[in-house]
């Protein structure tokens, strides 16, 4: 086992995970808001923010899909060692990690059922950057309107139309993170 596999986890597991979760919670509750995610140092190309999301939310109970660019022995080994999450196909994923291009098309991830809309995947999308500009966001969690540099608008509009079913998104860039629940209305 390589040293890289063993290192890069949270130094103070309980407290670091608590802080990281609050950042994700705040991001999901206030779509468009951008947060700093500290504490994780995963092997590249997994970003520190995406690594922190994995450490905070993934474990042996959550099947994970990894995009081809992330499915390196280093990243897989790191995830397995630190989270114990089983890697699996898109159809079974509770969390999926990858670039926007690799995650598309979004149609084969679970979107929940009418009785259990929560049984849907959360996509952790790696972006080159995150800025409060671009697509116009409205809906729950947003006072009037917010803006976020999303890769496109149409896919999110299609997802929102499935409500209450649908996917939820966490965007990461370096150590920064934002989120977009299925309730957000996105205009290009």
């Amino acid at each position, binding site marked *: 086992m390589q040293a890289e596999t063993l290192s890069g986890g949270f130094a103070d597991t309980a407290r670091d*995970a608590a802080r990281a979760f609050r950042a994700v919670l705040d991001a999901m509750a206030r779509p468009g808001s951008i947060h700093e995610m500290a504490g994780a140092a995963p092997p590249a190309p997994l970003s520190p923010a995406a690594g922190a999301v994995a450490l905070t939310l993934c474990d042996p109970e959550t099947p994970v899909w990894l995009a081809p660019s992330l499915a390196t022995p280093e990243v897989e080994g790191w995830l397995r060692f630190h989270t114990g999450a089983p890697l699996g196909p898109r159809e079974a994923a509770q969390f999926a990690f990858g670039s926007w291009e690799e995650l598309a098309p979004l149609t084969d991830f679970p979107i929940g059922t009418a009785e259990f809309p929560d049984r849907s995947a959360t996509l952790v999308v790696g972006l080159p950057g995150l800025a409060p500009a671009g697509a116009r966001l409205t809906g729950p969690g947003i006072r009037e309107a917010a803006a976020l540099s999303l890769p496109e608008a149409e896919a999110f509009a299609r997802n929102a139309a499935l409500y209450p079913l649908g996917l939820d998104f966490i965007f990461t860039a370096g150590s920064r993170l934002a989120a977009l629940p299925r309730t957000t209305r996105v205009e290009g």
Partner: protein
Amino acid sequence: MTDMSQDYNFAYLDEQTKRMIRRALLKAVAIPGYQVPFASREMPMPYGWGTGGVQVTAACLTPEDRLKVIDQGADDTTNAVSIRKFFERTADVAVTEATSEASIIQTRHRIPEQALSEEQILVYQVPIPEPLRFLEPRESETRKMHALEEYGLMHVKLYEDIAKNGHIATAFAYPVKVEGRYVMDPSPIPKFDNPKMDDCPALQLFGAGREQRIYAVPPFTKVVSLDFEDHPFEAGRAAHDCALCGAGDSYLDEVIIDDEGGRMFVCSDTDHCRTRREAGHTGALGVPEAFA
């Protein structure tokens, strides 16, 4: 014999349990008003004493938080004291009685009078999370009703109340509709508090431990109390002023003060009342805090 000395994890719950609750919380935020099932753990306090709220708070707390716990609006009710103590002991977290200073507020039966801010999280303790439960005791049925958005029964019940009593005979745990989709139980808060949930800047989280459900209302979300055009929702409170601070717009507790049937009305929100008295407001029976 089993080793009986042990340290508990930060905020009591083990990390795997926290991850499970955290995942449920995120889905709850993404589907406002929908009840997410979660594998509630057996807590060291009884079901009905806030085990759901405690688990939600434990999953959200960071070492930097400042926690306020209220029961019936008051910080010094025994169960509020007990829960606050629990988190002081297990998370070494700072606590406060001042609504404005708290980053997380766990509550049973009230929403503070002071408007909440974007920096705050309000965690509700919920006994029966299912608003349709008193119409249909079976979970398998109510889940279908939510899936099909079939809320006709609820409207029929409320309308029967009006036909019989001239009023909707629900004074607390008054059902609301969240963002035009899910009918939700706001927990047993008096309906006086319902309007505070609408378009609230704070994140509102709900935990029902025994019933194994978590749900949420994100900030700035539409929360409408169910009503009818000819019988609009009315908040309602005792038609008195607080005897201690003179507030005319707060929710009041009725206190029996002698065996002649004498009573007085005081703010249920103890922090609100104290803050007002400290600012010099005085009611019929009170003196400003500084002189008391």
